[in-house]
């Protein structure tokens, strides 16, 4: 792919991820703990699978910068630690599962990404509050990570065939 085209597509992906993130933050969810479906992570997964690890990491960090502009410092720290850990785990999983030639378990990748996104956020929250009390939320957030991972993974698998038809 030409470099100019790559830059344009990545810009679109970043805009899409940021817009979805903002849209999701406006939907009130009656659950505590900031449980989210993680719609924008679908975009991150598309970038990871189609453009590789470095591109996905860049998109995740830049998306967090958008969070910093709209929601401030503590939200940025939570977002960036969750995003970076999530992409790192998904990238590692993808590398291992491709080598084993078993076919990629996209659903499991997505679930692990969701779980580690929440673990990263918890780690940031415990650094911020200076307390390990935050980790009492770990089991609930792991379950929420599984649910959101199944959701995003399923959506991702549904849109994947259409992405293969484009040269993007």
């Amino acid at each position, binding site marked *: 792919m030409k470099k100019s085209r790559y830059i344009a597509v990545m810009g679109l992906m970043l805009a899409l991820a940021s817009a979805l993130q903002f849209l999701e933050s406006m939907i009130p969810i*009656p*659950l*505590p*703990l*900031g449980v989210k479906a993680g719609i924008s992570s679908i975009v991150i997964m598309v970038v990871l699978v189609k453009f590789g690890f470095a591109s996905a990491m860049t998109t995740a960090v830049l998306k967090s910068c958008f969070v910093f502009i709209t*929601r*401030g410092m*503590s*939200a940025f720290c*939570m977002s960036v630690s969750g995003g970076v850990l999530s992409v790192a785990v998904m990238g590692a999983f993808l590398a291992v599962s491709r080598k084993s030639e*078993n*076919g*990629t*378990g*996209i*659903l*499991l990748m997505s*679930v692990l990404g969701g*779980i580690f996104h929440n673990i990263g956020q918890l780690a*940031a*929250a415990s650094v*911020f*509050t*200076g*307390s*390990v*009390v*935050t980790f*009492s*939320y*770990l*089991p*609930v957030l*792991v*379950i929420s990570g*599984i649910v959101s991972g*199944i959701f995003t993974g399923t959506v991702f*698998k549904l849109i*994947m*065939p259409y992405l*293969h038809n484009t040269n993007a």
Partner: protein
Amino acid sequence: MNKKFHMIKPFEAVIIGIILFGSIAAIFIMNRSGSGSRTAVIRCGDVRHELALNEDGLFRFDGIDAEFEIKNGKIRLTEASCPDKICEKTGYIGSSGQSIICVPNKITVAVVDSDESIDVMVG
């Protein structure tokens, strides 16, 4: 495209199932509701206060930008200044092991058994 890409494999279901089961078990183990009296440990940076949960009332502390309400042996956080109000949405907590976290204001509320070694619990 590769057809394997689409399938949910048994090993995926097994791994997800194990993690799910472990989390549910952990919730049941952590939310043990002791019969003794319980105390809420409120921390905000270096500020630290303890409230016994058997006294109803509204509480405010210097240096903590929120109000705490105790009712029927449970505590909740109200009037926090944070934008997302996740701490307020947590609602009432009363079992030892439960907690309320407000990340923007750096407030943590942890419920512990009154006779437990609180310093170990809070870390």
